[in-house]
């Protein structure tokens, strides 16, 4: 700990330790909506999002974090979704994105 801190460290808030994260819930979600594994994080869903149009809600960010086991705040964020289904129509991987929203809400209510 005696090392000099030059200010180049990864800030704690953004640090993501995939070995420590509990990927169980992420896996359960992907099991319910198997296409979700094929997401390329293109952001099409966010670009078209009805809720994202009105607020800072960013669907791609939340579901990408969820896939990596970062669940904090995901449930609260998902409550902004209106389930309108636009994202599902634009998704190039044909993912049931509404299903993903609903699964995140079901499985991550405690985080």
């Amino acid at each position, binding site marked *: 700990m005696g090392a000099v801190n030059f200010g180049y460290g990864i800030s704690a808030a953004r640090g993501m330790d995939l070995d420590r994260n509990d990927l169980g819930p992420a896996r359960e979600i992907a099991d319910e909506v198997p296409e979700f594994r094929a997401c390329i994080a293109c952001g099409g869903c966010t670009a*078209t999002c009805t809720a994202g149009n009105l607020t800072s809600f960013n669907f791609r960010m939340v579901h990408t974090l969820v896939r990596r086991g970062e669940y904090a705040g995901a449930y609260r964020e998902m409550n902004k979704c209106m389930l309108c289904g636009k994202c599902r*129509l634009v998704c190039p991987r044909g*993912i*049931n994105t509404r299903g993903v929203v*609903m699964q995140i809400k079901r499985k991550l209510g405690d985080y």
Partner: protein
Amino acid sequence: MDGLTFYSGFVVPFIVGTSVLFAVIVYKYVRWFARLPRRDKLSVRRGMFSGATVAAAWECLMESLLHRRIWRVNPALGYMHTSFALGWFLLIAVGWIETVAYLGGRFVPLQGHIFFKYFTTELQHGPRWGVNFEAVMDLLLLYVLSGVALALFKRLRSRAMGMRRTTQLRMGDRVAMASLWFIFPMRLLAESFTSGIHGSGGFLTGGLGGVLATVVPAGVMPIAELGAWWGYSIALGVFFVSMPFSRYMHIFTEIPLIFLRRWGVRGEVGREKSFDHFQLEACSRCGICIDPCQMQRDGGMTGVQSVYFIRDRRYNRLSRRMADSCMACGRCEAKCPVGLELDTLRVGSRYTLNNTPSNDRWAYARGGNGRSDIAGASLPSETAQVGYFAGCMTLLSPRILRAMESVFAAAGEDVWWADREGGVCCGRPMKLAGEVDAARDMMKLNEELFRRHGITTLVTSCPICLRVFREDYSLRGIEVLHHSEYFQRLVAGGRISLKAGSERLTYHDPCELGRGCGIYDEPREVLRAVGELAEPSETREEALCCGSSIAGNAIGGVAQTLMGRAVGRAFEATGASCVVTACPLCKKALARGTELPVLDLAEVVERHLMTAADSK
């Protein structure tokens, strides 16, 4: 007196079974009825002394006894149901008359009617009132037995009757079904033994009795006779006890269901309700709802159709996957012979499983002082007669928006665009997902928005929005129109004129517009004005779903694509050069399923708008 007694040890199972059946049924019905909301009870009270009661009685006769609607779908299945229902009913009714014919007004206990043959061997046989009752009763028994034979055959080879095997049976069903199959063969045997001993009986029981008397030693006959009557009574008793816990509960439950429905009681869209019990237990598990379902037919999703859903919900084993795997397309509902509100039941279960408290979720859309900050809405000064709500899906289809713009311009309409710069969803997708509380909030937001702009007509291009505006919004003073209705009025009123063409078009009925809102003719009228209309084989009330319904919460991309392709093939078979629909979601879904161009009605109208140059 005639010295008849109507008691023997073997009647006990029957008496016990009947008492249990009666007690359970009364308990269930009274409980369900008591839990109906006051509004429903009032409408029952009002309906009871009106023509609705007569209509209900007639419907009971046609459906519960004759099963007319099942006949229409599948005659073999219709015969089976009728032979049990009508045959058994007549056996009881004619049996009653027979008792009176032989014994006059004398009191006869229940078991005396049911086991009439056994208790009245000392009576003079032969016709009464000029009617050969023995022959009539034998004929009826034969009729029911033919149904039993058919039912057995169906169990063994369900495909042969054009039906799918409906269910793996539960315990209650298994017991009830087995005992039901025993009832009538045992009755035949019991009556035949008695006839054989006393030389009575009609062509069937007398004939079989004669044969039995020759093959069975005379000493054994009375023992065999009593054994057969015991068997008959036990089969009846077991069936009656298991009936309320099996699918056969539908036999009785269809009757209160029909009456309640005629008196104006309905399920509540979006929530479970006590009335649902009547619907769930009136399902005969006939399986007619399986074949029309495209999830089954084209999407490769089996085991989630309405019959399975109803079974699981009735026995409290409903999974979320089951509740969510349905497009609420209404195709099965249109075919269900019992007329169950299958969409309503499914969506209601989603509420129970999925609804989460709203938590003021849409505060961001409401802005600081309860006013919405969303674009368009923040310009309360802008008012117009006509408001146009594109809906999320239309916003994804700029061509439809452009077409609407052209049509509004051609008609000289002063329009306020409600959600062009982004708005809140109509709320129906949320509602169909079971999140009724959150949906309610969104609806309020939009209601306020519409009111603020002083519109008197609200036009939308999206049937999903249309339906929720009509069914759930309170928009007094604002007429809600789908753009197809709006176009039809513009044309009829001479506000726009369309150029006739010769193109062969085919039209896809969106579920929410057709079965949902009953709008079939307006879009067709507009299309006939601009081209030749070719109908696909399944159309109007029977139209296919595009496969991408917003209600399909748990339907994967593969199933959607498979269903979309199947619909596409149906349109290609019409020989049309273009598929027209009137829903932005259907348009996108169909475009994935066919090579043909897919247009929204608005685009077609735009293309055929008569301009000043044309009319010269």
